[in-house]
């Protein structure tokens, strides 16, 4: 389902989030952790952008910065043209109705002292939407939408399984009828049989409500299933981005290739015995010069050690417009 609108719902432009490193007796700033270091992408209405990367790549910081749960160091986050990164408190309050987040851990993201009715109703209270009766109706409908029943209103989170809790998180995120949902590892804590239930729910809701998702995960097979576009992050930057089929069939960045090869394949006849990528991701406190992946890259050249490659179109066909296939690698054409 593609938006008819030409302008994307969300445009992220050169977003940066740096954290100071303090040291010495006075706690003065001695450096920066570049958790998110110049990230740009856009998401069309009704589509899903999958954001993939391993721990420490900055994907969760990015999610929090998008929501303005963290103030960005630099860059813009445009939601329908309005800049969240520089919005005032009042503007932000309004914008937050349209943008909601689903967290990874269904255990710590629900207040154990509140009933699930109160949890799902809270956003409606905060934003003063409707009368009490209307709010309770909405809550009941939402619970049914996510596959729970209205009678469960008075129960507490501990009475629910992980999958059910994640459904409650989804219901809460939908309470204000947002247009953009940022899902930070929404199924990572769930067992596979439950994982597919939550994925089905999210896909159905997207279809019914024309929701736009930024879906963050380290699990490529999940991301492949739900996304239209994929962005791969490594050490605070996007190293490759493009339509999901292109990325999976013709990965251009060596890191994307390494990730794809590393996924354990449940097909017992799949070809084995490939050599896994060596080494570990460097610390974002002291990233290596040049391309951050070069110390692990099997295709490394001298120039990779000094110059930071730009995100450029992989081939003529994909162009450099929105939704094209781009990669930040000097050897994207010859590997």
């Amino acid at each position, binding site marked *: 389902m593609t938006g008819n609108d030409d302008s994307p719902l969300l445009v992220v432009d050169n977003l940066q989030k740096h954290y100071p490193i303090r040291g010495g007796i006075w706690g003065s700033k001695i450096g920066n952790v570049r958790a998110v270091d110049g990230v740009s992408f856009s998401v069309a209405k009704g589509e899903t952008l999958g954001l993939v990367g*391993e*721990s420490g790549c900055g994907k969760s910081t990015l999610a929090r910065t998008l929501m303005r749960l963290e103030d960005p160091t630099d860059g813009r986050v445009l939601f329908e043209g309005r800049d969240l990164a520089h919005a005032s408190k009042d503007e932000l309050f309004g914008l937050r109705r349209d943008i909601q987040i689903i967290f990874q851990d269904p255990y710590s993201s629900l207040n154990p002292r509140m009933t699930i009715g109160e949890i799902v109703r809270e956003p409606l209270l905060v934003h003063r939407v409707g009368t009490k009766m209307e709010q309770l109706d909405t809550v009941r409908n939402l619970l049914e939408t996510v596959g729970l029943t209205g009678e469960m209103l008075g129960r507490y989170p501990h009475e629910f*399984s*992980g999958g059910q809790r994640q459904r409650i998180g989804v219901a809460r995120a939908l309470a204000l009828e947002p247009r953009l949902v940022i899902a930070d590892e929404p199924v990572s804590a769930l*067992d*596979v*049989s439950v*994982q*597919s*239930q939550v*994925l*089905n729910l999210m*896909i*159905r809701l*997207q*279809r019914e409500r024309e929701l736009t998702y930024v879906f963050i995960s*380290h699990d*490529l*097979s*999940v991301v*492949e*299933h*739900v*996304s239209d576009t994929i962005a791969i992050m490594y050490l605070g930057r996007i190293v490759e981005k493009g339509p*999901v089929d292109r990325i999976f069939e013709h990965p251009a960045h060596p890191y994307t290739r*390494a*990730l794809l*090869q*590393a*996924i*354990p*394949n*449940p*097909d*017992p*006849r*799949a070809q*084995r015995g490939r*050599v*896994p*990528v*060596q080494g*570990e*991701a460097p610390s974002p406190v002291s990233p290596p010069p040049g391309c951050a992946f070069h110390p692990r890259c099997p295709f490394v050249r001298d120039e990779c050690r000094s110059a930071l490659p730009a995100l450029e179109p992989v081939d003529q066909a994909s162009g450099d417009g929105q939704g094209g296939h781009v990669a930040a690698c000097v050897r994207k054409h010859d590997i």
Partner: protein
Amino acid sequence: MPLLDVDDLRVGFDTEAGLVHAVDGVSFSIAAGRTLGLVGESGCGKSVTASSILRLVPSPPGRILGGAIRWGGVDILRMPSQDLSTIRGKEIAMIFQDPMTSLNPVFTIERQLGEVLSLRFGLQGADARSRSVEMLRTVGIAEPEARLTSYPHELSGGMKQRVMIAMALLCEPKLLIADEPTTALDVTIQSQILSLIKELQQQTGAAVLFITHDMGVIAEVCDDVAVMYAGRIVELGEVEPVFERSEHPYTKGLLRSIPRKGVARKSELPTIEGVVPSLLDPPQGCRFAERCWRRTQLTAAEQERCLDEAPVLDQKAQSLAACHFPVGAFPLEAETMVSGDG
């Protein structure tokens, strides 16, 4: 004779609500040089089964309720505690999911590896040191000499797991039990650790019992697989037939619910509806019956049988399965199964 023979193992946990039958009649064996995967979702009893082998189930609240675990013909469960130390960390070694909590934070890597060598082989000083360096190099740790003086917090998660593997292998075990050893790691690091375990197994000829919830990991490293559900093994056999022509509806359901190649993007994934039954008072019949997607394809009498009579794990066309109406006997299309969930 198999290296390890687990026979009708039963383990319970005393809770305020009563006795939870976490492992309820589990039997399997491992031959030398083979890798058996124990797979299942949270709470199925796979980790308790693994811990029972070294008698590491905390007691109380845990209790061995019955069965036997034979190691070279001797029952580990009935062995005096002092004899256990001749097996633990010598003939059988174990690595855990969380290397952060399995290493002692106040000792250097050298001291922790040295302790193993001293207890196992009486090696001390320079001999122990050179053996440790050699082993760290084998498990792929760069600059092993420098790492010896490191403390666990100075190492990354992947490195700590490598140190754990090094410690386990220093014992030269005949059986290595790996309990979700890569679950806490990133996929590129997981792939390195899996290749390492496979490679080292080929070199040493040790048997491996690999516990995981990830069907992909099973397919990568195991020869045989045992699928557990609600405290019991529901299917057991070689990986290829079990994965490709699963006999038990639970195995098939699990495999189908993973998004994979060939499944249309954003299409509905098959699910397993419902929840795992309580192990306080497990159902008397098949434990999966309530959630079984095949139920709607059975006659009323057949459904009755599933609910009343617990199926035994016996030989079906492709593998051992505990099911009255195995999938292999009645091949079904994937579509039927999706609609079967209702």
